[in-house]
């Protein structure tokens, strides 16, 4: 990926390079987001939901997200399950083995914050963002496959917006409601339609 990144940086400086860069960005983002090879790091109960997601009933292959058991083949790591302090160095090493560019989905409350093990636990890491950078936080104990599907689609939007030129990043609008957005019921009561 180093060649692509250098290309992005040098294209930016050329006169008229921006046009080529935007086109190239669009192509790269499209192709990367359509083929997410996921590395499932299933350590606890959330892994069951991950497995359910990848089987025929929810059929994640149709999103182009194919699980592989080797981090060197993958660009998305799905951390599904409790990460203990003993497991933390392993997680870090597996993350470092993945080739760039790479993304991480924290699946389940345990990986988001420690979840039910937040209080009084001597062994659980309180959120994997203490160890690796996280792109998508997916809450739930465990999250349903539909929620995981939404996480994959949001990650796809994020990957599409990723530019190969470092200074050309575009912000991604989350489709989730913000904290100050009226909740569904309140919005319906006032305006008659979903806010």
């Amino acid at each position, binding site marked *: 990926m180093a060649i692509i990144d250098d290309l992005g940086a040098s294209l930016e400086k050329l006169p008229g390079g921006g046009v080529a860069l935007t086109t190239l960005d669009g192509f790269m983002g499209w192709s990367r987001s359509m083929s997410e090879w996921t590395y499932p790091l299933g350590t606890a109960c959330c892994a069951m939901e991950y497995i359910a997601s990848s089987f025929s009933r929810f059929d994640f292959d149709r999103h182009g997200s194919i699980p592989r058991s080797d981090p060197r083949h993958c660009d998305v790591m799905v951390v599904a399950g409790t990460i203990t*302090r*003993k497991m933390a160095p392993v997680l870090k090493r597996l993350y470092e083995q993945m080739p760039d560019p790479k993304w991480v989905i924290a699946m389940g409350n345990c990986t988001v914050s420690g979840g039910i093990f937040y*209080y*009084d*636990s*001597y*062994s659980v890491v*309180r959120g994997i963002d203490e160890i690796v950078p996280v792109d998508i936080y997916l809450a739930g104990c465990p999250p349903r496959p539909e929620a995981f599907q939404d996480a994959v689609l949001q990650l796809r939007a994020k990957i599409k917006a990723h530019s190969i030129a470092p200074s050309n990043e575009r912000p991604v609008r989350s489709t989730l409601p913000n904290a100050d957005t009226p909740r569904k019921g309140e919005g319906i009561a006032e305006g008659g339609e979903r806010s």
Partner: protein
Amino acid sequence: MNAEELKDRLCAQYPDLCESLSIESGRATLVVAAQDLHACAADLKDMGFDFLEMLTALDWGDEFELVYLLRSHEMAVSMFAKCRVLRDAPRVASLVDVWPAANWHEREVFDLFGISFDGHPDLRRLLLPEDWSGHPLRKDYEDERIVRRPDYI
């Protein structure tokens, strides 16, 4: 041998333990002194308790209590053998030579409670990382990384 015969035999062998021995619905409880633990375990194995199902410990403040769950497939009887050790000198004899299954169980109890087993072939931590300090299932375990549950929950 059935449960009643077992009780008679145990009472004959350990008259002073007879009082603390109870057999109800195929489940017996025997309280052993720490210094008799190994001899008693060997006897129990001779009597037919051929399987160590579980070993765990409890922290009672100034004492630890070890709980061995034994099973006799022949008599269809389970037995809890309990043994107390002082917190200041937490050492008991290892039972690995009686039931090899005790090996990892004793390592686990050593790991989490800090009770030493004399004669254990390989007494290392089992679950926690090797460089861990302290024994987290002790009631007085302190770790600055633990977040205590606030009262209002």
